[in-house]
């Protein structure tokens, strides 16, 4: 888990890194009934990627990352439902700008503090956003959710259809872009510096790294990515509910990331996939046992299988090689 990925390994694309994209395209052709769930998973992967950047690489533990996801989702929804802006690209950009401002502003506050105070501040900011979304009913729709979201065709060409074909490919394309950017970022000197800050903040400060500046940049960028993911979920569902904002989705995305493996890009891919597919099958039939199962799984990951699913894969690989 503490491997210095950016520093040690070769940053060239490996064959296995094409696998998620091939699989995603296969799903599009083979499982057309699951594109709605698929689009959902793709947005949560993007959301998890942004959390991974700030928590897994920069080491800032946050209980309020869904503040950005939610604000992104609501920005997109409100602009569409109340102001009649329907172009998906413009809406994404608007969400990104709003979340950049929010991320910068709250980053200034949050990153000054540490440990419990920091956790508490992230949590309080997320709770504050939730409360605004919940109570400002005329604008946000409150507990009933925001309806009347209309999304125009992508680039004026591809309409959002009820089979979610466009939504799926649109989410996939955006995810691909951000995956590329984040991957570049992680292997860049900037990313290595972030990992250094996570490993030892004092030492980085001592060798002259402006730690807070780096963290603030990373925090703002993570907020932007989370906001874009939020906007994507609004565009896919054409609806915004309270379940995208506040503490519970923040905890959930943290759980997804840890299940996949924190501090590694593809942990953010595996975690939401496993979590959301399992949720789709189990949560509706056995809601009690779903909570129990996810709790147990999390406990096992934290106590015994640090590194999540991909950590287990790594161990199996090592074991396999050792045998030969």
């Amino acid at each position, binding site marked *: 888990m503490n491997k210095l990925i950016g520093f040690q390994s070769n940053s060239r694309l490996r064959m296995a890194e094409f696998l998620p994209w091939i699989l995603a395209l296969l799903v599009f052709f083979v499982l057309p009934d699951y594109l709605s769930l698929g689009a959902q998973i793709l947005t949560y992967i993007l959301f998890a990627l942004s959390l991974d950047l700030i928590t897994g690489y920069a080491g800032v533990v946050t209980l309020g990352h869904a503040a950005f996801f939610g604000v992104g989702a609501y920005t997109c929804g409100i602009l569409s439902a109340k102001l009649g802006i329907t172009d998906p690209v413009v809406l994404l950009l608007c969400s990104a700008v709003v979340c950049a401002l929010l991320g910068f502003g709250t980053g200034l506050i949050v990153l000054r503090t540490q*440990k*419990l105070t920091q956790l508490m501040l992230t949590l309080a900011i997320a709770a504050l956003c939730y409360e605004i979304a919940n*109570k400002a009913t005329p604008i946000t729709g409150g507990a009933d959710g925001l309806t009347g979201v209309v999304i125009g065709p992508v680039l004026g060409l591809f309409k959002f259809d009820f089979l979610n074909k466009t939504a799926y490919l649109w989410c996939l394309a955006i995810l691909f872009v951000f995956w590329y950017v984040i991957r570049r970022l992680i292997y860049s000197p900037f990313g290595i510096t972030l990992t250094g800050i996570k490993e030892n903040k004092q030492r980085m400060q001592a060798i002259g790294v402006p730690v807070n500046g780096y963290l603030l940049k990373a925090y703002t960028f993570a907020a932007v990515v989370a906001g874009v993911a939020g906007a994507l979920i609004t565009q896919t569902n054409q609806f915004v509910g309270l379940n995208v904002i506040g503490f519970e989705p923040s905890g959930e995305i943290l759980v997804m990331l840890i299940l996949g493996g924190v501090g590694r890009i593809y942990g953010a891919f595996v975690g939401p996939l496993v979590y959301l597919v399992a949720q789709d099958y189990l949560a509706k039939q056995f809601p009690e046992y779903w909570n129990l199962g996810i709790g147990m799984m999390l406990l096992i990951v934290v106590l015994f299988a640090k590194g999540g699913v991909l950590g287990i894969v790594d161990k199996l690989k090592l074991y396999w090689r050792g045998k030969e």
Partner: protein
Amino acid sequence: MDSFLSAIVSVLFYGVAYGMVLYVISVGLSITMGMMGIANLAHGVFAMCGGYVLVTALAKYQIPFPAALALSFILVALLSVVLDRLLYKHIYAAPELEQVLFSIALIFIAIAIARIAYGTLQQPVMLPEYLKDQFTFLGRDFPTYRVFIILFSSVLIAALWFGIENTKWGAMVRATVDNHAMAQSIGINTKLLFSVTFALGGGLAGMGGALGAEIIAIQPTYPFEQLVFFLIVVSVGGLGSLKGPFLAALLIGVLDTACKYWIPEVGAFFIYVVTIGILLWRPMGLMGKRA
């Protein structure tokens, strides 16, 4: 004018009762987090368990109220010993992220178990007749149960403060909060001390949850929904401090009641604003020893 005055009196009264409950629940969290530095988000689980013990004891087994209250302390203290020995001990030294996830896992499991055992509805509290009345004081009526909450918590808090300030155990706890390594090196068995303190804090949370079962509804999502408030009390009050969280709990209790009374349309908005404000002004909390 008189109606305004009586509004203020009742907001203060209900707010203090709520604040007392918050403090009894959270004080253990402040001390254990101050001692060991674990980010234990699952503290609300203990409070919820206490609540369930009380309502079950009252409704199902017709146990008298005082005994049921005592039972909520004892059973939850035992539960926290078990959890500490079985699970918590593995994460004392773990990084923050793991502690956070570990406690989220405990919350998930607790919610699931509560839902399987009791269903999703909130549990009614079968108070005895003598606590249901109104209590008349200075020409005003106060619900007897809230008066009881305030008096009982005051006695409990006084006993706790006396224990921490004046007993050997209290001195050891204070020493460990101040400097864990030094306390250990002068021969304090910090592990044992922590376990005992953890059990006491868990028991108090259980009793607080039971006491406040009528104010904070006992239902499966309790640990998630109330988590923010317990953490606010601890972080605004200051980790490892006894008196800071007391101030914070009263502040949050009164502020929340006042907001619900006068401006219900903004909900908990001001609580969060005040929390953020205080943490910006004093990042270690009102009386904190460390962040």
